[in-house]
């Protein structure tokens, strides 16, 4: 997927004038917010779990190599294969290689943000394979040739009506006069179509919400059961996961799962939590003949030991974007690549470079709501500020802003001059604005006055009035 992150302001404008999208955004995030809050309130130890989650992941990140190697040994010992991939290209090639060796034509896919990150669908298609998304939301957007707009609800931006239109266009073998006005009917139709694909598939690709070092297991959570059919029915199961998803033990996995479901959807547990441990053993009733784990780095290990290390604690629950007022205004597509919302504003500069993704960490008011709900207590605003520091160091910010702030700082370092200059400015501005008490237009402030009035200053600075008062006393 070609990023358009550099065009965030234009993307945002487009999203703001998209009435359909605005209608969805006016309702949908609130549902997530309420459900999460209720789930958190129902669990007295929820805040303590967040502390434990943070500490667990900090420990993992400090010992990442140890746990990954232990995981690999377990997977291999159980007859599985681990493919270490430094880049997205290496991961695409590893997966294509597995598919080719299996003589695969049809590949089913569970929902995976890492698979979006490496753009596996386009790659498989370009190489003659047919990848089929089996998560309902992913299936819908695959039919529409759109990227996901939310990390746990990929078709977040669409209404029921949009989905109906998409199905009518795609499922041309079904009667055109069928009634499709109920979500249940839409789901049933998708289920019927996907059933056939599940049976045709030669390879099933899933992501992993977790990998467990002590058992060599990978874990996925879904609410549709599509992940299970994706990984059990085909002959070959490929797990694509990024390296930071590892935890040491089953108990640690339980901790993360308790935080994940509540933070993501407000559930106590997702409908399906599936552990995969190696290929089918003799005597097993089902399971794949081959089990592969494609481990992706793609720039993550470069964050270790830097001010951005903590972002690798992320468990991809989506709570940050559900609570973000900027995401709530523009939706996920405006972010221009795979990861939207506050987590994207920290991850995308890391994965795409600050030149491509520099807008994102700037497009935040630092309201702090993301950090307040993050189950892993990732200090997201602080990390966005660190990206701004990188931009500042590299001189990437707009010249006008740099100059304006530089001038301000020059005066602010010189209190006497500062007070004299502000006195004059405020006197002039106060006199100009006295008639109405506000300005509808102001030179150099179009960004402000385009949409709102600028209240006029009262006319004297507080410092000036305080000095006058002290003089009289």
């Amino acid at each position, binding site marked *: 997927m070609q990023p358009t992150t550099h065009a965030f302001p234009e993307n945002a404008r487009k999203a703001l004038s998209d009435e359909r999208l605005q209608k969805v955004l006016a309702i949908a995030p609130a549902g997530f917010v309420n459900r999460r809050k209720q789930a958190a309130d129902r669990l007295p130890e929820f805040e303590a779990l967040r502390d434990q989650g943070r500490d667990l992941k900090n420990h993992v990140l400090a010992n990442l190599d140890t746990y990954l190697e232990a995981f690999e040994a377990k997977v291999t010992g159980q007859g599985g294969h681990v493919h270490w991939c430094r880049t997205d290209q290496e991961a695409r090639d590893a997966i294509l290689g597995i598919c080719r060796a299996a003589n695969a034509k049809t590949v089913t896919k569970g929902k995976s943000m890492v698979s979006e990150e490496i753009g596996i669908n386009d790659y498989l298609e370009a190489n003659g394979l047919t990848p089929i998304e089996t998560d309902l939301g992913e299936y819908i957007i695959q039919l529409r040739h759109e990227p996901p707009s939310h990390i746990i609800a990929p078709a977040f931006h669409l209404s029921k009506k949009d989905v109906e239109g998409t199905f009518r266009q795609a499922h041309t073998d079904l009667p055109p006069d069928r009634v499709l006005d109920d979500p249940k009917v839409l789901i049933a139709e998708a289920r019927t179509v996907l059933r056939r694909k599940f049976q045709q598939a030669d390879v099933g690709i899933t992501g992993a919400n977790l990998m467990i070092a002590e058992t060599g297991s990978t874990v996925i959570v879904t609410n549709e059961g599509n992940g299970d059919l994706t990984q059990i029915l085909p002959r070959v199961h490929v797990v694509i996961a990024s390296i930071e998803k590892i935890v040491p033990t089953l108990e640690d996995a339980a901790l993360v799962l308790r935080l994940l479901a509540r933070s993501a959807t407000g559930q106590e547990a997702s409908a399906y939590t599936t552990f995969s441990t190696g290929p089918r053993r003799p005597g097993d009733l089902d399971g794949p003949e081959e089990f592969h784990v494609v481990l992706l780095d793609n720039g993550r290990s470069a964050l270790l030991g830097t001010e951005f290390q903590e972002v690798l604690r992320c468990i991809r629950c989506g709570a940050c974007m559900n609570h973000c007022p900027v995401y709530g*205004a523009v939706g996920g597509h405006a972010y221009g690549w795979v990861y939207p919302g506050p987590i994207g504003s920290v991850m995308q500069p890391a994965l795409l470079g600050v030149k491509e993704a520099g807008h994102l960490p*700037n497009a935040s008011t630092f309201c*702090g709501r993301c950090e307040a709900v993050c189950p892993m207590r990732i200090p997201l605003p602080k990390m966005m500020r660190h990206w701004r520091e990188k931009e500042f160091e590299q001189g990437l910010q707009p010249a006008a802003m740099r100059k304006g702030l530089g001038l301000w700082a020059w005066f602010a370092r010189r209190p006497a001059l500062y007070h004299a200059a502000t006195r004059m400015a*405020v006197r002039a501005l106060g006199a100009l604005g006295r008639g109405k008490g*506000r300005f509808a237009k102001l030179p150099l402030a179009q960004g402000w006055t385009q*949409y709102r009035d600028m*209240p006029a200053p009262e006319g004297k*600075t507080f410092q000036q009035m305080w000095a006058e008062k002290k003089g009289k006393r």
Partner: protein
Amino acid sequence: MAEKHPAPRVGLFVTCLVDLFRPTVGFAAVKLLEDAGCTVEVPSAQTCCGQPAFNSGDRRTAQELARNTIAAFEGFDYVVVPSGSCGGQIKKHYPELLADDPAWAARAQRLSARTYELVSFLADVLGMTDTGARYDGTVTYHDSCSGLRELGVKEQPRRLLASVEGLTLNELPGAEVCCGFGGTFCVKYPDVSNRMVEAKTADIQGTQADTLLAGDMGCLLNMAGKLKREGSAIRVRHVAEVLAGVTDTPPIGEKA
């Protein structure tokens, strides 16, 4: 309180926006503090807390301005700030900004420990329960993000507003959602900011309140500017003005 202990010496950190746009808030703060038995001083060596530089990635300037503020306020028992945003900068971010500066780290910590946002200082530190003020009107209150999430200012302004005679508080739905100001954000991303403040003013209008209050001038200028652009008659004031009973100046964005 003043009988039992010597009057606490409070240094008022005025903040840029109060200093420039609305001195009334500064005088309201002084009145509230003096009425509560504090001795208030306003060091003239203060300028800006440095937050605009800090949030623009200019760490070095932010550090210089932090040192300037620390030096200006070190001698006081308390530093009080009529803003959760600037208060948060001093209390939460100065120690982090200067953590690696051996000459300043401890001084930043000490200042942080003595710095408070105005309303939480009155309620939590001075134990104020009754302001003795009067305001005839129905108000609604917006929780500014930094005060709320960095400093825990939530229930203190409501407690004190409840003591204001003649005042009714209609809670604002989504009071904890950002108004879209965000410092330079509002001019860097005006379209997004506008969408956020639009949603906010719609919620404000829905409360049927005649007055909007908040504890931060940035948010107040943003919301007042939008309400006035929309032709709303809702009056906008800093919460300190109402708590101090200093409401003889025109509301924010209105003529004398």
